[in-house]
């Protein structure tokens, strides 16, 4: 029988890694993800988890260690936050291009300068182009489940891609929530042992991993990953469906809709602030505002087709941006440009704008969501958005 415990996101992630029977873990401390590694260290020390726990000399080393371990046939786990994520940048593409299904937990954190331990998505979002899967969890429960689901997807022979499994620093990584833990047998049924395939490093079958290529072969090298991402959504659907069945969940693979029936305005949110958005939507509905929430579970692969269908139902979409993209097309964060691109060919397009909120680890209180709702409702009345980006808590906007 599954048992219910109260765990922070970090602790939940550690439980998932243990149940996934990971072989090699590489640690390095940085707030706020460190607690996950501390939990795993205890498990290894107590003999509850049979894995090599390598003390990496830095985040770049962490990724390098799991690159080698995965190539040698191990199921691997590592993680980081903030500037640790960007320090390791060199190694992300070598891992994805070599088709090694490494898993990295990111408890996101604002990038320097200066030091700021609070949550922000920019660290992980800056790595979107590196050929990894990427998605956020809203709660410790979802973080736990996402780790297992991602191993299954990443290691699928049709995919063979590494995964960034993200959760908001502090809001999810540290605030405890209810987590239903499945039995080891259920996880074993869902997630078979990692089969690295014929390219594993083994003196019995020698291979050369990663020889130099000519420039005219570069596109073909890139195409391999591009094609894997085309096949990926189907595998995600299968894996989530299988997980739901075996473990007893009801996840939608790419996006979750909450109270969107007949909604005029929706908040589009990725990660922990969706939890506040749910409350906001309920209160708004109580006041007669037809509000809903669309939550994004995977930003890579970006579910363009699904979003285009779903978001077209609404009159106005407010994208909550917890990351920055200075000088970007929307002069705001990273999600609105992707949402607008997904909607471009839709026959019915909602109005869209974005709200910079939660940057630096700031809370996004209910009143900010009401403020966003007012702006979206005004936009519907006016027939257009005033601008593409608003900064929550920092500007007054007349309703």
């Amino acid at each position: 029988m599954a048992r219910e415990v109260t765990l922070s996101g970090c602790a939940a992630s550690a439980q998932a890694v243990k149940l996934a029977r990971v072989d090699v873990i590489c640690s390095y401390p940085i707030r706020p993800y460190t607690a996950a590694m501390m939990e795993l260290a205890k498990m290894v020390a107590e003999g509850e988890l049979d894995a090599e726990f390598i003390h990496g000399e830095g985040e770049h080393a962490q990724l390098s260690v799991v690159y080698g371990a995965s190539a040698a046939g191990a199921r691997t786990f590592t993680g980081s936050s903030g500037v640790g994520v960007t320090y390791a940048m060199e190694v992300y593409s070598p891992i994805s291009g070599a088709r090694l299904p490494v898993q990295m937990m990111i408890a996101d954190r604002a990038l320097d300068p200066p030091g700021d331990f609070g949550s922000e998505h920019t660290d992980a979002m800056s790595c979107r182009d590196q050929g990894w899967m990427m998605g956020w969890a809203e709660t410790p429960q979802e973080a736990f489940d996402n780790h297992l689901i991602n191993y299954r997807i990443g290691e699928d022979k049709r995919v063979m891609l590494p995964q960034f499994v993200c959760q908001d620093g502090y809001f999810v990584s540290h605030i405890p929530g209810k987590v239903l833990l499945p039995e080891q047998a259920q996880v074993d049924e869902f997630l078979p042992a990692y089969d690295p395939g014929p390219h594993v490093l083994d003196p019995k079958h020698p291979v050369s991993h990663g020889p130099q290529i000519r420039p005219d072969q570069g596109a073909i090298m890139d195409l391999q990953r591009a094609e894997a991402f085309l096949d990926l959504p189907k595998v995600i659907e299968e894996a989530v469906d299988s997980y739901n069945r075996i473990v007893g969940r009801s996840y939608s693979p790419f996006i979750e809709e909450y109270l969107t029936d007949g909604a005029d305005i929706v908040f589009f949110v990725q990660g922990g602030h969706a939890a506040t958005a749910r409350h906001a939507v309920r209160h708004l509905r109580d006041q007669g505002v037809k509000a809903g929430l669309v939550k994004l579970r995977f930003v890579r692969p970006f579910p363009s087709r699904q979003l285009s269908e779903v978001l077209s139902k609404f009159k106005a979409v407010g994208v909550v941006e917890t990351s920055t993209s200075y000088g970007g097309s929307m002069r705001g964060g990273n999600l609105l440009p992707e949402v607008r691109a997904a909607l471009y060919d839709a026959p019915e397009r909602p109005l869209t704008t974005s709200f910079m909120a939660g940057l630096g680890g700031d809370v996004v209180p209910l009143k900010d969501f009401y403020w966003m709702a007012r702006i979206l409702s005004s936009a519907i009345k006016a027939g257009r958005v005033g601008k593409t980006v608003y900064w929550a808590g920092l500007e007054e906007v007349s309703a």
Partner: protein
Amino acid sequence: MTPANPIPQEPSMPATVKTQTLPLLKKLSQIPKEDYYVPGHRTCAGCGPALQYKLVAKAAGPNTIFIGPTGCMYVANASYLCTPYAVPWIHAQITNGGAVASGIEAAFQVLLRKGKRTGELPNIIVMAGDGGATDIGLQAMSALMYRGHDALFICYDNESYANTGIQTSPTTPYGGNTTFTPPGKAIPEGKRLFPKDPPQLVIGGHPAVKYVATASIAYPIDLINKVRKGLNQKGPAFLHIHAPCPKGWKFDESKTVEIAKLAVETGMWNLYEWIDGEYKHRERGKELKPVGEYLKLQRRFDHLKPEHIAKLQAFVNARQKAPGVPVKVPVPMPREA
């Protein structure tokens, strides 16, 4: 003599499952015939690093995995989509040879323990250049030594970043002309800095390391034996191999081995082992030839004046007295305005 390391340290990894013991050789005729670094690679004619790779691969044998950080022994060997490595080989970044090797070693340890694979822990050898070992790759090399992984880290030293067109590295000798240390009116010696000493970076600072040695392609039996001793040694080992580069040092490609020998005969390269706290020199106290005999064969030193050569000679002489004792080198003075 440096005392033996007073704190016996078990490597932090669990007991290795390697039982192989590679025998030491006495003569060239005992060198294994099989090549695991096979003909058909794009290294320059007369390439010193290619020669040491061939010898290392022979020494290690087929139960081996090579990790190849970016450098000549990657790019020149792996162009294009074909390599001369007949054993498993994996590319690493120039930054992370030690880390990638650590991951491979850890994977083998746990997979063997869990019964997910069978056999022995293979030889795990990092083949890093001087940049990948002591400069951009220093951190990863040190961490592998510190964590005690059962692996051999080889620094093949051609005294430059050669693959990118000969730029200075921390092992480029004082006075070496490279494209980042060209001699000129303001800087007549070209390179003003004295080099790092790679084995000394490892010795004494990493308690899990019990074997460090220097080697040269001019002494192939010695080189093969040191590779084998490093591989036979439980835990991490470090090997610093002198591998002259005809293109970078600017000498005729037929002279690669001759120049490697002169390096040893002039004291510009010292052959020794450090075994669990004890130094063992190949030939200590032998009269050295003047460094000039070594320098004059390489056009990378053509610009040196007698006062520069004298500085090099003094450096070489001081190093003979006691390796491990820091040598006083002249600190480069700020240039006059």
